[in-house]
């Protein structure tokens, strides 16, 4: 239970690690308890909260900030792999020569045609055919994924990894698939398979 919220003193300030598997409400409660119990320790310090891969809404970030301020008067700084990731919904076909650039997740309801590029700092979901290039986690997040109903891309990039379609006989996809980085390479798995394995 104590492991939900962990404190660490660093040169920059006090680092608070939140267990990203836990839900936000529980984490808030635990954090508040800990902050209140050790308020002298935090007095005036910069509090760096690491939320791991958890995605927080703007309200949730504000809530954390308020809590830190109320407990010890310190300032909140967020460090996170997944926080503040907004999602952009695009309802059209992305055509050759067109580029979608977004700081966050991108969901496309339509096709991504050959010669088109979708680049997002978060995840990419294509509710259609992905036949162009997609780059998820473009700022270096190797944990990002790319999902498509039909995965026939010219090239996939996730974080710092890159892979291209095979030269021989284009592999045709049959159903929804998800691309992710596993053991240092981009792999594509069936969506159902990914679900089953959690």
């Amino acid at each position, binding site marked *: 239970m104590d492991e939900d919220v962990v404190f660490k003193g660093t040169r920059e300030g006090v680092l608070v690690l939140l267990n990203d598997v836990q839900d936000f409400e529980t984490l808030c409660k635990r954090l508040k308890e800990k902050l209140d119990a050790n308020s002298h320790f935090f007095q005036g310090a910069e509090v760096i909260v690491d939320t791991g891969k958890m995605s927080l809404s703007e309200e949730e970030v504000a809530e954390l900030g308020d809590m830190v301020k109320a407990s010890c008067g310190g300032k909140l700084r967020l460090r996170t792999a997944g926080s503040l990731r907004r999602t952009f919904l695009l309802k059209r*076909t992305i*055509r*050759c*020569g067109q580029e979608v650039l977004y700081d966050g997740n991108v969901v496309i309801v*339509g*096709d991504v*045609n*050959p*010669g088109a590029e979708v680049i997002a700092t978060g995840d990419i979901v294509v509710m259609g055919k992905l*036949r162009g290039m997609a780059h998820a986690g473009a700022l270096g997040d190797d944990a990002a994924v790319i999902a498509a109903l039909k995965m026939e891309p010219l090239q996939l990039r996730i974080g710092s990894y890159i892979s291209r379609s095979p030269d021989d006989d284009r592999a045709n996809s049959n159903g929804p698939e998800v691309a992710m980085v596993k053991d240092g390479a981009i792999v594509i798995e069936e969506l159902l398979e990914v679900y089953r394995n959690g």
Partner: protein
Amino acid sequence: MGEVYVVTSGKGGVGKTTTVANIGTALAMCGNKVALVDADIGLRNLDVVMGLENRIVYDLVDVVEGFCKVKHALIKDKRVEGLYLLPAAQTRDKSAVNPAQMKEVCEQLSQDFDFVIVDCPAGIEQGFRNAIAGAEKAIVVTTPEVSAVRDADRVIGLLQPTNLYPPYLVINRYKPQMARRGDMLDVSDVQSTLALDVLGVIPDDEAIVVTTNKGEPAVFKNNSKAGQAFRNIARRILGEEVPLMELEPSDGLLGLFKRIVGLSR
């Protein structure tokens, strides 16, 4: 006020000029007043395909530079009543005209004609921007080849923020036998990639080469399948419901026999 169409493709050599000549002629044969505008300045072809090359006195650049009025540059077709051509200049290049001037010319023409059809040059640079400037509707021509479809997709993307979206799609030089064998993209492949309604499918037809070289559009030939397909497109533009032509080749006696015994697909 007539309607201004632009015929474009991105890629060169897919049949823009042939499409303009044939659809324009077919519309005129149905009793409409039609003006064809060649916007391919420096590489004009439409006059050759129409067989009107020897009649050119003034051209599009003369009109925008004020040397003559539009009606003086228009060439009357030698076969069909109501069909006119505004030729491009051959000695200049695309920078001789800007989009605003092109728009002005199209507006003037649309006052006197039922249909104005602009033949767009290949590419997506100034020539393309000029050609689409005055248009109200667009027709994108492609062939069932991956590179042509790719360029068509690019052009459709460029049309997206304009009033020309969604354009009509014409699939040219279609070979049903190859498509059936899976050696060529078929109509549904092209359609699903480009996500547009198909205005017409033109079968590959040797008559096009012959008629183009003679300066005589294929729509005059009753026995040409391509000519028939172009006539159908004209009727669709006029609002008629015309089903897509049956392009499956007849299999002959052997095919009939195979079908009867259930060997054929």
